[in-house]
Structures are given as structure tokens and as C-alpha cells.
């Protein structure tokens, strides 16, 4: 009887350890998948390349719905998502980080507020 009890306890511990193990793995993957950093990087580089390809007088419309969604998740003010100073684009979707990327096209860029459909407009001067 004692042996059976021991085996049961061993098995229960074994199963709990396995479950804990997989839970940690899944949690790690979800944390990585939900991170704002790749979205910040993607939009910063995308905007920098768009500006590099642009000419003065152009008006560029860009869908940033993924960034808006993430900023809302993180309670980050939407008007602070994108800023362009000198020739550096900064995207910030959270309190504890941001991403910056520079462009080589020597133009002034004016960024609009977020428009209907989670779009922004970049006015190249």
C-alpha cells in the first residue's frame, strides 16, 4: 500500500513539473510575441525608407493600425507614437523603450495626427 502511495506522489510531482515547464515555455513565447519592440523597429525603418524615397512636395499616407493597437494595449498616448526630429524617426509605444532610425534625405517632414482608419500623413517639405 505504501509503495502505491509513493508511486502516486511521484507521478503527481512528475506531471506538475511537466506542466510548470510547458507553462513557462508558453509564457516566454507569449511575452516575446506580444513585445512592442519589433513593431517599433518595423515602423521606424519603414518611415525612414519612405522619407528617403520621397521628394519635396509629396504627401505620404501610412497605415499604422498595428502600432495604434499596441499603444492602446500599453496605455501609451497615441499622439506620442511618432516623432521626427532633424533626420531621425522615433517610434515609441511604451514607457520603457523606443526605437530610432535615421534617414539620409535632407528634407523636413511634418507628421499629421492619427487620422481615420489609424492612418498618418507625412508631408515632405
Amino acid at each position: 500500500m505504501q509503495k502505491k502511495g509513493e508511486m502516486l506522489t511521484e507521478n503527481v510531482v512528475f506531471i506538475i513539473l511537466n506542466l510548470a515547464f510547458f507553462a513557462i515555455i508558453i509564457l516566454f513565447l507569449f511575452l516575446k510575441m506580444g513585445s512592442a519592440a519589433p513593431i517599433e523597429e518595423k515602423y521606424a525603418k519603414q518611415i525612414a525608407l519612405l522619407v528617403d524615397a520621397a521628394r519635396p512636395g509629396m504627401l505620404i499616407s501610412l497605415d499604422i493600425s498595428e502600432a495604434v493597437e499596441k499603444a492602446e494595449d500599453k496605455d501609451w498616448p497615441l499622439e506620442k507614437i511618432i516623432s521626427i526630429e532633424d533626420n531621425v524617426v522615433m517610434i515609441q509605444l511604451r514607457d520603457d523603450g523606443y526605437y530610432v532610425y535615421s534617414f539620409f534625405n535632407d528634407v523636413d517632414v511634418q507628421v499629421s495626427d492619427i487620422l481615420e482608419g489609424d492612418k498618418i500623413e507625412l508631408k515632405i517639405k
Partner: protein
Amino acid sequence: MNFLIKNKHGSEKLLSVYWFAILFIVAAGIVYMALLFYGIPYDVREAEANLLLNKVSDCLVQNQYLNNEIFLEGFEETFLEKCGLTFEVENFGEWKDDQYYVEFFIFSFDDTQEKNKGGILTGAKAGEFHLRDLHSTKLDKSPFGIERSFYALDESNVMYVVEILSIVNKEGKNVR
């Protein structure tokens, strides 16, 4: 019979050790793949180098003709400004506005020569010259460079050969 039972119990314990070893290997694999996937930055240097090259091409050839200004003395000093370029970059690691390099050369057209290139008439360089050497090493983390040559006419219909090289480094934000 007793022997078999004892042996079975031992093999179960041994199995659980192997099971944890397998779990550990699987977990390490998953963590490694996730870190690899989310840790590698988007490499946009090829697009950037192409855009830089296009920008310089547009500067050298305007209204379908070779820009006469490039033959003027002192063009090299004002090359970036005249072509609407700035090589200032954000503060990151050891970057010091040294992440770009661009050069162009104008040759006379000579169809008796290789690649129709006659004598060199003018040219200009801007940015970090060191990147040119690094680019030529062709290593994995080398700066990304693109070369292009094309023919151009001036307003008197004289033909020239134009060669441009653009290089973008930005290592750390595009490749690690």
C-alpha cells in the same frame, strides 16, 4: 519475478531522467529559436543603399541631361548639400555620423575601351571612406554596398559614362 519488478522500477526512474533531459533540450531549442526570430533586426540596408544610389543618380542627371554643376570646381565639397543628402545619424553604440559612403565618377565615352570607359573627367566622394575597404572584404557583417554604371548625355549630346557606389553600414541595427 521480483528481479523484474525491481528492474522495472529502476528503468522508470531512469526514463524520467531522460524525459527531463529531452524536455530541457526541447525548451532550449524553443527559447533559442524565439530569441533568434525576435532578436534579429530587420535588415533594410539593401533598400537604403539602393535609395541612396537613386538619389545620387537623380542629382547627377537632371531633366534627362547630365548636371553641368558636377564639372565645376569645388563641387565635391558641396556634393552632399547639392544632392540634398545628410549623413548624420542617431546616437547608437559607437556610431559617429560615419555610417554612409557614396562616390561617383564621370568618364568620357570611348567605345574602344573596356566598359566604354575613357578618361576620368570628374568625381566626388562623401561619407566614411573606411566603409569602402570594409565593403570589399565581403564578410557577413560587411557594410552593404551597390555599384551602378550608366550612360548619360549632356545638353550638347556628348555621351559620358557615370559610375556610382553607395554603401550603408548601420551594423547593430540591421545585422548583429
